[in-house]
């Protein structure tokens, strides 16, 4: 019984830490996109429309694996 409870706590902790790590990854990735996106816009303000679309697309592509990680964390928490 004790072991089961400890297992449950570790499972919850693992899910929380995993969610945090995935968020760090997304933060770094999207931050880099934002940094170089703004830099490019500063260099070439007339290309802002193309750059915006590409920034959103890249952010969406980064989100894919992050959300995969988050869903796995949710499953670890609730199942």
């Amino acid at each position: 019984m004790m072991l089961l409870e400890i297992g449950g706590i570790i499972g919850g902790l693992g899910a929380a830490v995993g969610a945090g790590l995935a968020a760090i990854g997304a933060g770094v990735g999207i931050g880099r996109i934002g940094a170089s996106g703004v830099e490019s816009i500063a260099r070439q303000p007339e290309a802002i429309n193309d750059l915006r679309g590409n920034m959103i697309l890249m952010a969406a592509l980064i989100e894919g694996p992050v959300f995969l990680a988050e869903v796995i964390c949710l499953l670890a928490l609730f199942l």
Partner: protein
Amino acid sequence: MSLKRLLIVSILAIFCTQFAFASNPEEGGKEFNVGQHLMHHVLDSYDWELTEYKTGEDSAGNPIYGHLAIHLPRILYSSEHGLEFYSSTDAMRASGKYEVDSHGHAHIGHAGSESDHDHGPAVYDFSLTKTVVQMILISLLMLWIFGSMAKRYKKDPNRAPKGAQSLFEPIVIFVKDDIVAPNLKERTDGFLPYMLTLFFFIWFSNVFGLMPFNSNIMGNITVTTALALLTFILTNVNGTKDYWKHVFAMPGVPGWLWPLITVLEILGLFIKPFALTLRLFANIVGGHFMILSLVALIFILGQNGQLAWAGIAASPIAILFPAILMLLEFLVAGLQAYIFTLLTAVFIGMALESHDHEHAH
């Protein structure tokens, strides 16, 4: 005219099923379980729950909650009983032919058993669930809005847009010029109807999912899987010779590397729609979880009514933050529709491309 009447009758048939007032005694006395409530909110169900209300108290003084819900019809097929219709899950249970488990799924014989391997005879369940009904309603709304708009354009193409036209015409132009045309080039006109349907269906579903009493369709992974499957089929059916050449014999790569590259490319074919599925699903469910957990703060801190002052103290935060998050979610609703449509267009565009020249990737 008769088609319209049929539509009205079928909508009425869905909603003339009874409002059910049922109390669920096993929930009384328990602490407020956030996880359970959140999951219950985002999952599909066989009745359309409108609200919970207090029906009474058990012997220890803990409140017992009942559900006010619209019961949705059940349609079942099994080799034992044939095709059957019931007005609600309760009516199905009352017939005695099926046993119902805690999720509302119908089984023949084995409802009590915990074993996953032995479900008894197969029951094919075509019931209208909450998600299905919401999908039908949104489709009808879209048919109505865009059908009437199309009729007006056909009647007088040169008249200035009016009413809903003024709202949707720029969006249609945006989807055409900024999403579809850059990727599909000369094939734009052929794919535009599907892309517009996709965009507006996802957008409408997401926006309606944010409103009270609505079900969040795109927070249901089966729906997003179906949409991504359509993308997968469209991509591969329209694949040119060059597209398949890039999968099975990548030009510019030495022959002995082909087996490895081909395995990766074939995996890639499936990973693309899989990522589409998860992105849309997780964005919508994640947004709902964020808002719901903040609202749930009231009930967590108030400990189910025992510490009412703490719940009241938490409520300004628990109302203000979700209000701001709602604005963010409203943006995400459109953004996800944009991204799903854009990626579908990109994938199909990649499959349609034909290369006149040899080049290395």
